[in-house]
């Protein structure tokens, strides 16, 4: 469960990332975070990951108090999250299999667990056949699937995706979105920041709209606001 209580983030250069945001996302939800560039989508996700800490207010994620936690606990918070980025962020010198396995090695899983879980995760995203390929040998969509497999392999409570389809063509984008929905149906909370109007409108999920760092609207089965 994720809870923002009157959270404000002002960057050191004076830019306001988020202003007095109070919101609650329950376990098992699928939430879109939308809004124009600079509206605070990235800041919202960064606060969840403890990439940034709020200057005021409170942020709770999976039982951790992000606004007030020792640096040494940050890795454990991140292990409870699966993270997907627009630019993939795979380790270039590892194969698809090893990139996924790496997330398990970090939590000191046994080799037996790794050998069982990694193929399962790759299978779930439909990449079993490319397990031995390096990131630069994979298409954008395939790389994003590897990232998804990596994010899933430790069964995180929450999956965060920052513009996961930003670098992908429409068809591949839909494949990724369908995967996210499938993951959500298995009980994982999914939070997606995106620009993709058509996808948001079609999927009829909860939509939180940010503007100038504030929540403009928060609706169940929402759609992209017409900005024209």
């Amino acid at each position, binding site marked *: 469960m994720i809870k923002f209580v009157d959270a404000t983030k002002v960057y050191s250069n004076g830019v306001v990332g988020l202003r007095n945001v109070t919101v609650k996302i329950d376990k098992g939800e699928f939430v879109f975070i939308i809004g124009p560039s600079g509206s605070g989508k990235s800041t919202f996700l960064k606060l969840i990951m403890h990439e940034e800490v709020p200057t005021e207010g409170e942020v709770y994620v999976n039982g951790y108090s992000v606004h007030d936690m020792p640096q040494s606990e940050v*890795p454990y918070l*991140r292990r409870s999250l699966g993270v997907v980025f627009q630019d993939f*962020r795979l*380790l*270039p*010198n590892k194969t698809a299999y090893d990139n996924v396995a790496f997330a398990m*090695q*970090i939590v*000191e899983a046994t*080799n037996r667990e790794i050998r069982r879980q990694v193929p399962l995760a790759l299978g779930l995203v439909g990449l079993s056949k490319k397990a031995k390929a390096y990131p630069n040998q994979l298409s954008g969509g395939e790389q994003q699937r590897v990232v998804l497999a990596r994010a899933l392999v430790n069964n995180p409570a929450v999956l965060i995706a920052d513009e996961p389809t930003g670098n992908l063509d429409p068809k591949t984008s839909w494949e990724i979105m369908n995967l996210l929905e499938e993951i959500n149906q298995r009980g994982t909370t999914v939070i997606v920041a995106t620009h993709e109007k058509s996808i948001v409108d079609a999927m009829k999920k909860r939509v939180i709209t940010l503007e100038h760092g504030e929540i403009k609207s928060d609706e169940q089965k929402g759609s992209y606001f017409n900005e024209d």
Partner: protein
Amino acid sequence: MKIRTVKLLVKEGASNVVKNKLMTFASITTIVITLFFLGIILLLAVNITSNIEVMKRDLKITVFLNIDVSPFQREEVITFIDGRKEAGIVSEYVYISKEQMFEDMKQILSNDALMKGLTPENMAESFEIKLTDPVYSEEFIQQLSALSGVNKDNGIGYGKEELDKLEAILKVFNYIVMAVLAVLMVVSVFLISNTIRLTVFARRRQIEIMKYVGALDSFIRWPFIVEGLLIGFIGAVLSFLITSQAYSWLQHVLNIVLTNFSLAPLNVLEFGPVALRIFVIYAIFGVIIGGIGSFLSVRKHLNV
């Protein structure tokens, strides 16, 4: 940390050495150069020290007797020197008679007009004495000059020329060492900081990704440190090989030069006896440089 994690991190570090060829090459080159300079200084120091020992052992005390010395007085001096020899203070001595001195002079001055009117009778007898240790010299010279047959006006020569030579060499050596040390420091600091900066830049993303996936700092740090240690060790081995080859060649050449300028018994030492010491020093320095270099390069980027 579990044992399989330790194994994993060591393996990870080792494979980074192989995979990041350019960075590995740059780092190893830096370490090879740095250690090579360090080796030059060490070998220089070892040689200077050993040659100073040789020269010290070689220092001679020259004592002249009065021209009109009586047999009894001469006997007194010989008895005194023999006594010191038995006491282990004098290692060896040579007696030079009037006749021999005359012959020596004739050789040096040859047909010179100066030789005219000189006879062995004008010559002074002398002793050339070597001490087992230069520390005895002061007391020894004092006691010697108290004997009646010894010429006090000419003084007792204590290898003064050799001492001057030695001091001049020492002075020059000190300047060389300081200059080389300064160069070494500048070069190694420059090269290592540059290499580290490159490494950090190349790995910044990698560290960042590891942090996002929830890796502990130690988990991120250790493969880098293992990598640094390995690179340091490889650099040390390579540098050692280069040093030994270069030194053996230089030793050969310098010894020929020293012999030709009749500077024997000065000589350049063999590499063999100091090889192990040099290797151990190289290995320690290489591993420390590599380890610290990696540690620093990661530390900067751990706070994501």
